[in-house]
């Protein structure tokens, strides 16, 4: 198996494909996203990972190494906790199954940097950064009773990954990466909805 992996990598490198930053080209990255909650989000709200997410980046290559544009996405977090007792008043106790549901939709100004672009490489690493709003929908239910709150907070994102072009032009290919997402949410004693997401998808030019 290990031999197969090395052979595959060697083959890719040997092909010597080139990923251009596609100067003055508009490109779309579309990914499936798998996310893991972190910190107080994980400890206090939802500890389950989320396999339900998509991300999409619309990026314009301002030169061979840097693209800038808009980063959008959607990630759905959900967890149902077993029945437990919750103090809901001075001398009031409620027994309920607690459900927490959080949807995060980033709207980010985003940049991707390809530090090694221009060199002939089959695998092109990149780093990315984004800043903007995280549109958040947070629903909490005791049994079937509860409600949701919609808000928007500051969201910062840092990411890294690599792209594997389909052909020598490098204008389309596979994209794999991960992002650390800082999502501000300060309401009702909650602190943030920070998470890390892993993404895999395609990139292709829009002409």
């Amino acid at each position, binding site marked *: 198996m290990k031999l197969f992996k090395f052979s595959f990598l060697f083959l890719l490198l040997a092909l010597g494909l080139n990923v251009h930053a596609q100067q003055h080209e508009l490109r*779309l990255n*579309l990914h499936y996203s798998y996310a893991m909650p972190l910190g107080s989000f994980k400890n206090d709200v939802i500890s389950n990972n989320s396999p*339900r997410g*998509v991300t*999409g980046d619309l990026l314009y290559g301002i030169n061979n190494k840097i693209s800038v544009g808009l980063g959008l996405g*959607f990630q*759905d977090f*959900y967890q*149902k906790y077993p*029945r437990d*007792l919750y103090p*809901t*008043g*001075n*001398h*009031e*106790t*409620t*027994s*309920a*199954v607690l*459900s*927490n*549901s959080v*949807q995060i939709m980033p709207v980010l100004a985003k940049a991707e940097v390809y530090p090694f672009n221009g060199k002939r490489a089959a695998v092109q690493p990149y780093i990315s950064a984004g800043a903007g709003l995280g549109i958040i929908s947070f*629903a909490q*239910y*005791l*049994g*079937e*009773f*509860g409600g949701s709150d919609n808000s928007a907070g500051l969201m910062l994102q840092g990411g890294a990954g690599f792209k594997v072009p389909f052909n020598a032009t490098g204008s389309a290919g596979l994209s794999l990466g991960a992002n650390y997402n800082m999502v501000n949410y300060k309401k009702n004693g909650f602190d943030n909805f920070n998470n890390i997401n892993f993404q895999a998808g*395609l990139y*292709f*030019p*829009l*002409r």
Partner: protein
Amino acid sequence: MTNKHLLIAVLSVCTASFLSCTKEPLNNLTPQESRIYVTNSDSTVNFSNYQTYSISDSADVLDNGKTHKELTGVDQAYIDAVNKYMQANGFKLVNKNSNPDLGINVNRIYNTATGYYDYNDYWDYYGGYWDPYYWGYGGYDYYVPYSFGIYQVTEGAVSVDMLDLKNANAKGKIAIVWNGLIRGEGIFDSSAADASVKALFDQSTYLKSK
């Protein structure tokens, strides 16, 4: 396929998955999981000072602003369950004319339409639907400790109220010393009564006679 067509196809798939892949909490609950059991108690009361109780022989049905007494199979199931767990906790059932220490009312509450009042404050109307004469204390008002929660009863509920009859004359009022509220799917089904009432008693560990 042009890039434009590819983009439309991909975005359509993404939009469809975006809308369909959200885990909707209310669609992921069984009827049992949908239910909540809420209890309020008067923290100044020591329940071990009470030995006997009597329970209403029918339920008070609060239906969109109108009230009447009824005894259906569901009501009987709730009354039986309350009897079962009261006696399991050491209380003795007596006739209401035998000066019980505690009186217990069982209520079925519906609010399916906008009535002239909607039970937003469950307690405000208590004296209106539970005549204190029933318990032999005509002229007394019901008293609900300020610490009791304000129930937002917007659909349906079953409630069980425990009244302090032992000290009614001394205090000049009938204090509600414990209350249990059951809400959620399937609560107006006889089969839900025992487990629901058990849950109320299980979370009220202080509710024991000597």
